[in-house]
């Protein structure tokens, strides 16, 4: 199908873009990579009166790693972020998660900031934002506000972005020493949204014992679901984890839905299996970072 008609704007400066968004309010959607928005337009699931294309706002292209922060501009594509070696060194989870986002050809055009504000409940990137307490930077004519981690998500397909605002960047804290991350998911077909998935971060102490552990699930509810698992895991040796209690606690806390692809109980079971795999990998990475480079 073809998209409905809309008024098209391609502002030449951020200021002009913000003025437009302020004027248009609810009637406007921002067009960046378009890899979620254009399918929704083509299928006529959305019909905004106006699109504000940020293609001329070159400053939003930037990807920077400085002062232990990875800053990703609104126009940075998944593919560019995935290939950035500096980003991968500062925050290995980003490259790992981006490799699971759709297909390489989609990643050539889709943007990471766009995927986060699209806030699909089965998408990997919102879970990564929630797990790592990344800041979503929202800019409007009224100024800049930052929304952190899970607070960036309000509901299924709904982020904290308000009418008149442009999501200009994401700011991820770089991973400190003795911390490890991993992401696991299961999808029915390569590149599809996952039936369930989880991103985890584990921090170990100087002796290689677990200090903190946190998981962010996706595809098992309307929003990323973050759970802290310090209780069952603290003090465990990173190379000999007993995950029974942690997995049990997570399964009890999850409240997935049935749908055409999987039952709620299957999803809950799967989420636990994926959590176990992710925790083992993250823990060994956390311990490895300590002794290695």
């Amino acid at each position, binding site marked *: 199908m073809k998209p409905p*008609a*809309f008024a*098209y704007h391609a502002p030449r400066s951020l200021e002009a873009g913000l003025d437009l968004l302020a004027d248009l309010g609810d009637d406007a959607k921002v067009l960046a990579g*378009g890899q979620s928005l*254009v399918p929704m337009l083509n299928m006529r699931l959305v019909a905004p009166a106006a699109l504000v294309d940020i293609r001329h706002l070159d400053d939003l292209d930037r990807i920077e790693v400085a002062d232990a922060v990875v800053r990703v501009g609104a126009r940075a594509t998944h593919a560019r972020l995935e290939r950035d070696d500096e980003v991968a060194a500062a925050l290995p989870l980003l490259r790992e998660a981006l490799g699971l986002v759709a*297909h390489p*050809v989609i990643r*050539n055009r889709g943007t990471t900031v766009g995927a986060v504000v699209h806030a699909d409940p089965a998408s990997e990137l919102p879970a990564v934002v929630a797990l790592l307490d990344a800041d979503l930077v929202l800019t409007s004519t009224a100024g800049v506000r930052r929304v952190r981690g899970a607070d960036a998500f309000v509901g299924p397909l709904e982020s904290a972005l308000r009418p008149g605002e442009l999501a200009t960047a994401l700011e991820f804290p770089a991973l400190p020493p003795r911390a490890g991350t991993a992401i696991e998911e299961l999808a029915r077909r390569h590149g599809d949204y996952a039936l369930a998935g989880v991103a985890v971060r584990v921090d170990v102490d100087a002796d290689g014992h677990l200090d903190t552990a946190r998981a962010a699930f996706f595809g098992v509810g309307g929003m990323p679901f973050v759970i802290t698992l310090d209780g069952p895991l603290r003090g465990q040796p990173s190379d000999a984890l007993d995950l029974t209690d942690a997995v049990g606690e997570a399964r009890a806390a999850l409240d997935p839905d049935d749908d055409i692809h999987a039952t709620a109980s299957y999803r809950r079971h799967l989420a636990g299996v994926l959590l176990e795999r992710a925790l083992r990998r993250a823990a060994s990475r956390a311990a490895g970072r300590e002794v290695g480079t």
Partner: protein
Amino acid sequence: MSEELFEVTVTVNGALHRAAVPARRLLSDFLRHDLRLTGTHVGCEHGVCGACTILLDGLPIRSCLTFAVSVDGAAITTVEGLAAEDGTLHPVQAAFQDCHGLQCGFCTPGMVMSACGFIADHPDADADAIREGMAGNLCRCTGYAGILAAVEQAGGTFRASGADPRERHSASTDERSGGGGAVVGLEGTGAGLGDQE
């Protein structure tokens, strides 16, 4: 309701094209309807099938998920821009022929363009990497074994020649191995139909 028109100027397969189109004109339709370059195929129109894949400034993208107005000024390569001027097939096209990488041919333009982008990006890809890299293109004839073999063969050709798989083939440097001598083109896929004024 008359929609506002926007001037869009793009270089497609080396030739400059200009047309005035509504903002909602998908790049896939812009290529096919406005520029009459029907080699690019349209399957699902929501990014799943990959039939509409083209190269935008050297990167494979879905033309059905991109508006023509958004790529004003860009350089585009479609399947019509691959074979040499004399009709000699581009090594990726030749490999698809040699390896029986097409059956009905509907997915082929997208497969070929994805393969060109993939090989440029991963000149040393093994069979597993090729499967991963080509997974975004669907073939409803399910002729995947031939397609993957074709991408592997073409990868080898480019490793040997050092040429850029995203560029139009030049017949004088043709070192194609295997396939029969006669150039039969990819009739039925629309490839080669484009006029290049």
